[in-house]
């Protein structure tokens, strides 16, 4: 059952490679940005999975909570919140660039744009 136990991490690897493949293999700039977002999302899952402790509960310290309760680590969630903001900003800048590239070249296919550049 070791494989199922690491289920989250298998998913991370699959999503990561799928995203990276989309960035490298697609010629359409929008698909590249989408691939980049998928790639980043895999890292978000990696962080959040590492914060979960089996049997751990929400990390709210209160006097009514018994002393032997195990808490999940909240810090990875906070860290990844920052990284999600960074990811959204990257996608936004990328999308804005694509709009301007479309205005300047009339295309968002990388191979067509490169033909104009020749």
């Amino acid at each position: 059952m070791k494989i199922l136990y690491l289920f989250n991490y298998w998913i991370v690897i699959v999503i990561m490679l799928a995203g990276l493949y989309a960035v490298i293999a697609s010629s359409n700039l929008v698909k590249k940005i989408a691939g980049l977002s998928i790639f980043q999302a895999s890292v978000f899952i990696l962080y959040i999975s590492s914060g979960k402790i089996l049997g751990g509960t929400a990390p709210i310290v209160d006097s009514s909570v018994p002393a032997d309760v195990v808490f999940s680590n909240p810090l990875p969630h906070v860290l990844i919140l920052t990284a999600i903001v960074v990811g959204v900003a990257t996608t936004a800048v990328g999308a804005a660039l694509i709009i301007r590239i479309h205005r300047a070249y009339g295309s968002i296919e990388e191979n067509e744009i490169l033909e104009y550049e020749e």
Partner: protein
Amino acid sequence: MSAHLLILLVVIPLFSAPLCILLRRSRLVWLLSSLSTGACLLISILLLQQVYRSGTVTYMLGGWSTPLGIGIEYRLDLFAALVALFVSLVGFAVALYSYTSLQKELPRHKHPLFAAAYLLCLAGLLGITVTADVFNLFVFLEISSLSSYALISMGRDRAALLASFRYLIMGTIGATFLLIGIGLIYSHTGTLNMSALQKVLPALTGKASIQASLAFIMLGLAIKSALFPLHLWLPSAYTHAPSAVSAFLAGTATKVSIYALARFIYSVFGKPFVITQEHIGIALITLSIPAMLLGSMLAIKQQNLKRMLAYSSIAQIGYLFLGLGLSTVASVGATITHLFNHALIKSALFLSLGCIVYRTGKAEISSLSGLARQMPWTMAAFTVAGLGLIGIPLTAGFISKWALIRATLTPDYWPLAVVILITSLLAVVYIWRVIEAAYFQPPAPGSTGRTAEAPLGLLVPTWLLVLLSLYFGIQTTVNFGIAVKAATALVGG
């Protein structure tokens, strides 16, 4: 006040950026960005003095302590102080330069946006140098990268957009690799503080995930610092960006990534793990040789001068990685000195090239013919900085190349000294092409009338950096003396 100097280095440019957008008036915005970069320069000089006299300066953000795991520590040692000094120095010179330079490159209503992105980029770069928290380092790296994508896309040419987009793709992949590596370290150690990591990580070096995190972090930062063969984003980004942006990024962005890489090697993972156990040093040396040779050879072939300087940067990045890879006190000291000197020299070269573009509208070598008679000050600046790039004695470039060659003169590594000498000769070739065209060729027959000398608003910042590069070639206590001390503290013994 003086207790908060460290954080002001980041806070001043960070808060000036939105103010720039509110001010709207081009001249006011320029005044604000010059003032705030000037303040950064002043603070980094004060901090360097303070660190030099009384040792490392630390600052806990918001007064939170580290044991809880939520406090973010800022720390400035000699290495960081030296990097912060040249980043703010180049930042100040380029901020002065940008006002006149942008008149011809960007519509007036976009100047505040440019200044805002520029100050954010500076805040990010300075943040990387002062932080002692690895996750914070990632955030600052992304702040500086995102704003540099915006800055590059402001180039006049539509190719700037594509260059910026490609840099965005490569840069984000690099930064995400860094993020993966940091996540793997954190899940093992539960801390993000560099000095805490330095204590716990040596016990964990047998773990596969720590080794994987080393690989991710090295690869991510190597993409960011454009180490051959991960340099493909760099030439077109520098070629198509506005002149001021090329000068700023060439002087600071890749250098700060190399700083971060050195930090991770020596202050986080530790030399025994990275160099002795995982042989990263050999990998860096192996990649730096083609970087130096191919970078210089491609620079010779370029017709566009901005692209030529960009390829020359790739060769110089090779020198920096060579010093890091050798990993002795002498070689890392040479790398730190070269970080400092090359930042001044390469920015001065890009700034003087910006003067030429401002007057002639072109950066092609064919448009230079006979230009030295019409723009004597600009071409003199280019020549002096070019000599520094080659490494002629009495220039700053000589000091660092000399230090690097001396570091390679060991029984095992002496062939590397030959490679350095060959690439210096190649640098003579590509700099000489420019000098020959400008000084010894008659003006092109089709050229109508005279080209005036560049305005003072461009010449003053350019010459500021040129003169400083001469000054640091003669008075070497700051760049070389402190760099060796910093390397001793970093590498240890």
